C-alpha cells in the first residue's frame, strides 16, 4: 500500500510555539489559543475540511478532551488536533466561523456532553428532546439498562 502523505507537524510546531505534538503526530493546543491555531491551519496549511469533531469525558482528570480531525483536500494529509476544557465549567469558542461543518457536530456535543460553545449561532439540543435533563454521554450519567 502506498505511503500516505504526512501532515507537516514540524512546521506547525515551529509556527505556533505553544502547541505540543505527541508520538502519534497529534497536535495538542491549550483552549485559549484554539481559534488562532485553527484559523492558521486553515489559511496557511490548506486544512480546509473539518471531518470530525468530538469530545471525550475524563472524569478522573476532571477534564473534557475535544478532538478535531482536519483533512486537506488538495494535499491529501490528515491531522488530529486536541484540546482540553475544565469539567466543571466546560466552555470553549466555537469553530463555526472557520468551518461551517462544525454546526451540527457542535450541537451534538453540547447535547450529549454538555460543553458550551461560545459564538455558535444556534446552540440547541439536536438529538434529544429540548426539555431533556442531563447530558447522557458523560461518565457519571445515571442510566438504567447498563449491562455488567
Amino acid at each position: 500500500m502506498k505511503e500516505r502523505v504526512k501532515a507537516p507537524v514540524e512546521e506547525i510546531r515551529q509556527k505556533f510555539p505553544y502547541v505540543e505534538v505527541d508520538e502519534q503526530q497529534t497536535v495538542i493546543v491549550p483552549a485559549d489559543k484554539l481559534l488562532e491555531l485553527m484559523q492558521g491551519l486553515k489559511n496557511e496549511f490548506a486544512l480546509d475540511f473539518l471531518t470530525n469533531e468530538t469530545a471525550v469525558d475524563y472524569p478522573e482528570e476532571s477534564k473534557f478532551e475535544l478532538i478535531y480531525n482536519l483533512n486537506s483536500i488538495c494535499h491529501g494529509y490528515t491531522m488530529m488536533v486536541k484540546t482540553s476544557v475544565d469539567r466543571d465549567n466546560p466552555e470553549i469558542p466555537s469553530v463555526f466561523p472557520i468551518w461551517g461543518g462544525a454546526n451540527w457536530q457542535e450541537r451534538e456535543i453540547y447535547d450529549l456532553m454538555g460543553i458550551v460553545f461560545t459564538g455558535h449561532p444556534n446552540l440547541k439540543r439536536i438529538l434529544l428532546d429540548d426539555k431533556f435533563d442531563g447530558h447522557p454521554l458523560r461518565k457519571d450519567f445515571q442510566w438504567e439498562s447498563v449491562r455488567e
Partner: protein
Amino acid sequence: MLKTQEYCLNFGPQHPATHGVFQVILTLDGEKIVKAEPVCGYLHRGIEKLAEARTYTQVIPYTDRMDYLAAMLQNLGYVQAVEKLMGIEVPERAEYLRIISGELSRLTSHVLGTGVYALDIGGFTGFLLCFREREKMMDLLEELTGSRMTLSYARIGGVADDAPEGWLEKVDRLMDEMPGYIEEYNGLITGNEIFQARTKFVGELTPETAVNYSLSGPVLRASGVNYDLRKNMPYGIYDRFDFEVPLGTNGDCFDRFYCRVREMEQSVRIIKQAIEQIKEVDGPVMGKVPKVLKPPKGEVYHEIESSKGIIGYYVASDGSNKPYRVHVRRPSFVNLGYLDEMVRGVLIADLVAILGSIDIVLGEVDC
C-alpha cells in the same frame, strides 16, 4: 384589506418523502419556503453510549444498524479502526471478501437511493424496477452472511466466514447483467425530460460551500471536488483496483443523482476485478487475534468512504476489553447541516427533490 400571510407547515416526522422519521418545520409564503428548521433525533438510540458497555466485538452489530442500507461499509470502518489501534494484520483473502461484500453493499445502497429518488419525483415504476435488482443482491448477501440487511460480517482481524461454494460465480453473473439494468434506469429515469426539468438547476452547491460545510460523498463530488477516500487516502487494498471517480459539474440535484448512477458502474468494475484476483488467493479468513481483545491504551480515528459519504470512527481505549469511547462521524448527519440554507426560497416540491438527492438514511443521522 387583502394581505398574504406566512404559515407554518410541519413536514412532519411522518411523511412519505423524508426517508424515515425526520421533521422539517417549514415557514411558507404560498408555496415558497421562507425558513426551514430541520429537527432530527426521532430515531436516536444511544449507540455511542451503549458501545461503552459492550466488548469490542459486541459493538459490531450496532454499527450495522446505523446505515442499514450499506451495512458492510459501516462494519468495515469500525473493524479497521480497531485493527489500526491494535496493530492486527488481516489476511489477503479476508481483504478481498471485505471488498466484494463492501462494494455489493454500496451497490444496494445506491440502487435504493436511485429508486427512492424516482419515487419522490413521482415515477413509481422506477422504484419497483430498482428494487428488483436489490432483491437479487440481498439474496447473495444472505447466502454469504446469513442476513439480508444487517450483515455483521466483518470481524476484528478478518471476516466471519469464507464464501460458500459457487457464490463467487453467482456474483460474477449478476455483475455481468448489471450494466444492462443500469441502462434501463438511465432510459426510464435519468433521460426523462420531466425528471430532468425537476432536478436540473435545483439546489445548486458551489464547491467552496461544500468543502466548508464538510459535505462528503456524492454530494461533494457532484460539485466538482475530486475527493474520494478510496483514491485520496486508500485503505484496505483499494489501491489494487482500477476505477474512476465520477464528478459532476453544476452541483445540482441531477448531478448528485447521476454521480450515484455512475458510481454503481464503477462498483461493478471493482467487484469484477476483485473476483478475478481472489481466485489466486487462498488461506484463512481470520488473522491472529487474541481471544479476549484488550487494545493498548490510546486512541485512533479512521475514516472510509461509505455510500453516503465519509464515515469515521473514533475509538479511545483505556486498556480494558470494553471501549472507553466510540464516536461515529456519520455522513448523513453532517450532510444535513447545510439543508436549511439550501432550501431557502424554493418550492415544497423542490424540498423533496433536494432532500432525496442528499440521500440520507435516518438510522445514520440519529445514531
